[in-house]
């Protein structure tokens, strides 16, 4: 029997078809993975199943009968629960308040019965063998714990279908393994589980069957045991793909240290130290990877070294000069290229044209701007050479950046920063949320740049990216460096331990 079936389910946004006649059949008490590239339409599909979006056409059947889901409440009433990629929790409320949000237990007179609520949540945590303290505030707990809160929130509502959207994106490898065990356990308890992901290793590990979506259409549906990672990747992208880039790691030069950060420290807006004595060096011809679970200080570190945030203590030396706390325009003048964390918040201006974005950050250069007037001829030349050299697919040369896909927008930044010929490149999340083709291209660019004898600082939450590109990796945990590893001589699990704050010394004990 099928738990969920969709028949010809279609969702259009204006002229864009996000989901095109999708026929799904999700078997009961199994784990089904839905895979596809970023932008393939996986999340749209799930949002329709959860009542957040209304289908343009087609129908949804749950346990064989047709339903109309107008809101998440309808979905929950039909036994469907969803754990979103970006958690829908209220940070200032406690774990138990979040779990019971919308289902509060009240005494006569309308006041909330805190004691009873805490007791119920403790019972729930105990029943499913989760590790959580119901009284902790959500803002104080780890990302992994927050995800457990989200799952419990759904389980409390007695759902028997659980949809998880990219659940391992923010977890350490250990936490991800733990989640996989939990999901298998829930399956044993009779739940039907749908996991949306693009991580194929996890698909193979966790699922009973798998559905591949490409450009809004189902392109494959099979039992997991009958397929392989390579085949799935090929289906997702539509051609053969290299799962990892080729990195010869030849020592290009031993040009010595070009960049040196010493004891960088800063505080967050609550006055708490979120970065503590972070020191590292980067040599010419080397990619230094900075790994860690999101929220452990990488974001602050990148902001400091790219001039967007002030360090309260510490020093940064670049090419023999002190560049601590200087602003981004000065950093670029000194020969540091910056690919910022959020491409549309800090890297590009969505509403401005490609031409303007092609010189953004370099607009004070004499060739670009003289006497306060921008030289559009030079700007156009730069735009065209960047587009050609980096193979950027652009519809309208005079159009805005907002019209580009994520991958092409990101390539504009990479092209702009590399064309300026920097001696060091800070690349933060250079391939987040973009298509595999663009990822491959950006990875190749980074390696080529390194092979020319330049230095790169690579910050990424995608561990495989860090492992395949970097020459050395440092790991951040709670704002401190927990260790440095050689990616050729270590494995994911070892880095995972460091990401969880467990250092060699502790592990040895």
């Amino acid at each position, binding site marked *: 029997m099928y738990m969920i079936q969709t028949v010809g389910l279609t969702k259009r946004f204006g002229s864009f078809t996000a989901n095109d006649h999708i026929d799904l059949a999700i078997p009961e008490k199994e784990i089904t993975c839905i895979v596809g590239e970023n932008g393939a339409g996986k999340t749209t599909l799930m949002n329709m199943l959860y009542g957040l979006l209304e289908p343009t056409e087609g129908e949804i059947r749950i346990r064989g009968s047709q339903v109309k889901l107008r809101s998440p409440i309808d979905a929950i009433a039909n036994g469907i629960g969803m754990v979103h990629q970006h958690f829908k929790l209220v940070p200032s409320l406690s774990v138990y308040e979040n779990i019971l*949000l919308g289902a509060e237990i009240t005494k006569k007179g309308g006041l*909330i019965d805190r004691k009873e609520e805490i007791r119920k949540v403790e019972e729930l945590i105990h029943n499913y063998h989760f590790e959580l303290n119901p009284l902790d505030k959500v803002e104080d707990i780890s990302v992994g714990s927050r995800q457990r809160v989200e799952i419990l929130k759904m389980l409390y509502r007695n759902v028997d279908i659980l949809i998880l959207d990219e659940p391992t994106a923010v977890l350490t490898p250990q936490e991800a393994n733990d989640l996989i065990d939990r999901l298998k356990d829930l399956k044993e308890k009779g739940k039907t589980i749908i996991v949306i992901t693009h991580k194929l290793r996890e698909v193979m590990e966790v699922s009973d069957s798998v559905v591949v979506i490409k450009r809004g259409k189902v392109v494959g549906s099979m039992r997991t045991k009958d397929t392989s990672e390579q085949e799935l990747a090929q289906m997702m992208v539509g051609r053969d793909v290299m799962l990892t880039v080729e990195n010869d790691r030849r020592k290009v030069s031993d040009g010595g240290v070009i960049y040196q950060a010493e004891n960088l420290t800063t505080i967050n807006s609550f006055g708490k130290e979120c970065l503590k004595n972070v020191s590292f060096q980067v040599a010419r011809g080397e990619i230094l990877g900075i790994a860690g679970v999101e929220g452990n200080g990488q974001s602050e570190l990148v902001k400091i070294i790219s001039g967007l945030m002030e360090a309260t203590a510490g020093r940064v030396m670049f090419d023999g000069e002190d560049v601590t706390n200087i602003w981004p325009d000065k950093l670029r003048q000194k020969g540091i290229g910056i690919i910022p964390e959020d491409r549309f918040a800090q890297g590009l201006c969505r509403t401005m044209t490609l031409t303007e974005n092609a010189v953004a950050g370099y607009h004070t250069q004499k060739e670009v701007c003289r006497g306060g007037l921008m030289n559009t001829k030079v700007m156009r030349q730069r735009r065209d050479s960047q587009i050609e050299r980096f193979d950027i697919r652009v519809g309208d040369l005079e159009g805005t950046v907002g019209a580009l896909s994520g991958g092409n927008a990101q390539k504009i930044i990479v092209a702009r920063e590399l064309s300026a010929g920097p001696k060091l490149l800070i690349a933060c999340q250079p391939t987040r949320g973009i298509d595999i083709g663009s990822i491959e291209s950006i990875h190749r660019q980074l390696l080529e740049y390194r092979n020319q004898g330049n230095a790169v600082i690579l910050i990424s939450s995608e561990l495989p990216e860090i492992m395949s590109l970097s020459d050395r990796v440092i790991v951040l945990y709670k704002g401190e460096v927990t260790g440095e590893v050689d990616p050729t001589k270590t494995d994911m699990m070892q880095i995972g331990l460091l990401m969880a704050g467990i250092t060699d010394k502790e592990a040895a004990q």
Partner: protein
Amino acid sequence: MQLMISILYDCVYHSAPIILAVLGGLFAYKANVLNIALEGMMLNGALFSVLTYYFTRNFAFALLVCLLTTLLYGLIFAFFGVTMKGNVIIVGLAINMMSTAVAGFILVMMKSSNIIIPEFDVNALKLNIPIIKDIPILGPILSGHPVLTYVSFLLIFLTSLLMYRTRFGVYVRVVGESEDAAKAIGLRVDLYKYAAILLGAVGCALAGMNLALDRLGLFTNSMVAARGFIALAAIYCGRGKPVQSSLYAILFGLSRSLAVNLSVYAGEASGLFDCFPYLLMIVVLGAASYVKYKNVKVRGFQV
């Protein structure tokens, strides 16, 4: 001693309308709606309470009309600011200008620069609380205020209860803090924003009535004198927490009371004392903002 008692009595007296506006307004703050229309709503409460009483001589009726008309402003604000997703500053500004204009129009119709209720005995409205009124020093400070003044102080605790111990309060805070979380559990976000704004209107209506009818029995078009904005400042300084925000309201009440009582001794410079509450507002807001942002090390646009 007498001056001290007088200052403290006036402090209670001047705090009450600000507290009422604060307690109403903080719901909108918690629901993440910036309601600068508190000022205009308060003026409307003052106008219609006095006007209705002028014609009917009936307190209950005055209260009813004052509430209903102010709620209407609340609905207008909510409709344009929430449903139509307009800019709440502009909508709020419009309401502030509109209520002044309505008041001006009515005053012109009545051919007077103010509405004074004839034979209105302000002292008759003052409630002397048995036992408390006989306590030395405290008695003359705490006793002898109009009903709404007592109500305002009681409401501080009721508002805390509503905000932190009921479903409604939790939902308002969730809507303000994380709209996504609210939508994910199927809360009707707009509904809670409406409710928060309308509660603000109720608070402002009571504040206006307390200010004009209860205390003075008269209305003039400039009588609110930025108390709505002072209430907003108190809400921001107290981060929307009922007790803290009310304490700021009392601080502003105290400054007003000091200005009134001390200006008696100032001779020709007495007018300068009227600046005191407003200067205090600037200083307190500046200090609150300094404390809030002193640890922000991120440059530029991000907070």
